[in-house]
């Protein structure tokens, strides 16, 4: 599995794609492989405020359910509604399937996240 170098990663297997004061959040290729066939993604409402490490939803595969954790603090400005009807895209394209977009409230938090190389070491 390859992990794009433009993303930052958490130990809980989320990624965040930061550009300016916005960040798109999804789960990693490793996470989707561990979960297996994803059948349901439950996401927050637009406007929800999240702290770094706070649960923002759940993802369910046929065999298991997992919490989704926000990599950084921020306010939800957009939710990927397409995942409601096509949750399986998380399996097919995990690093392209963003779940929420956050308006970051503390950009410095991103410095504590893992880069692609560190994340690769974590899951190998």
């Amino acid at each position, binding site marked *: 599995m390859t992990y794009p170098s433009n993303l930052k990663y958490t130990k809980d297997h989320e990624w965040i794609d930061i550009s300016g004061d916005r960040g798109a959040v999804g789960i990693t290729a490793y996470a989707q492989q561990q979960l297996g*066939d994803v059948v349901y993604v439950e996401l927050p409402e637009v406007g929800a405020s999240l702290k770094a490490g706070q649960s923002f939803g759940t993802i369910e595969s046929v065999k298991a359910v997992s919490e989704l954790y926000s990599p950084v603090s921020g306010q939800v400005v957009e939710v990927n509604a397409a995942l409601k009807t096509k949750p399986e895209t998380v399996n097919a394209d995990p690093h392209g399937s963003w779940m929420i977009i956050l308006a970051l409230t503390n950009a410095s938090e991103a410095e504590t996240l893992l880069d692609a190389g560190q994340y690769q070491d974590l899951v190998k």
Partner: protein
Amino acid sequence: MEQAAVAPLKKTPLHARHRASGAKLVPFGGWDMPVEYSGIVAEHMAVRERAGIFDVSHMGEIEIAGRHALEAVQRISCNDASKLQVGQAQYSGLLTPCGTFVDDLLVYRLAASHFLLVVNASHIAEDYRYIAEHIKPAGDAVAVDASSRYALVAVQGPRALEVLQPLTGVDLSTLKYYWFAHGEVAGVRATISRTGYTGEDGFEILVPPQAADRLWLAVLEAGRVVDLLPCGLGARDTLRLEAAMRLHGSDIDETTTVLEADLGWIVGWTKPDFIGAEVLRKQKADGVTRRLVGFELLDPGIARHGHDVYVGDAKVGAVTSGTQTPYLKKAIGMAYLPVAQTAVGAEFDVDIRGRRARAKVVAMPFYKRAK
């Protein structure tokens, strides 16, 4: 009693094959078993549309033989084994005196006075002790735990017959549902039954353990023309749930009676006596107070085993099995509800991690194959 240190996981004769094939293995009932090969959804769909092969060698086999073998089986198994001809099998239960399940099982009549019981993996020792104890009053019959002498492979799906037929001299097309025959499959001595736990046509094949790998590879090879997939316990569970087959330990156990589980059809009501008969006859006459139903979720989400069930503010039961089904593409499940709430169309709530999701009682099975 203190539990001893965790026992090492048991391995089926096909364990090395699963490992070498890259299957994901997990502990299940004391066994290290493949949960999935290529993915639960792909495997589930293969069985619904083509064919799949499962290693279910973890299941136990207990043989009962002797002059009074039929009387012995009649006593410990709730279904009526006298209705079985040699070569025929039936679904049944081993019950407590309260009419609840010690285990569920298949009873095969190998010969007039020789039966084979196929029981759940995690209950082999318990079932054997129960059987050995309770057949004593029946007369001249002995029970033997023969589990180590058998491997069990299931080939399931609408094209299972087409895959298996070239490998055996047994005419599979004449083998009726819940009948079995002895013969060779891929050069291996086998007992082939037209049974399964998927709601699909298919066969279960008992072979000596040392021949299991040979059979497995032969079926995979013969299955290439239909794109047969090796399947794990994950797909086995979603398939059996769509077919509304009960899972012991989840849907039925020592707290649920046969009638509450809506399995009255596996009770031999006309036979003289069996363990649990008295309670079940009374329950049949008086009616049950709760019953297992099938349901569909109307709201998004997946109901899972253990989630509480509410009617209004009253907690009335719990989900026993639940999943998102790959074929029907719905969130379905089973739950025990008060009888007044069990009519098809009746609605209730499932508490999914603190969120109430609306559910509706539906008829079971959820999936029924075309004849």
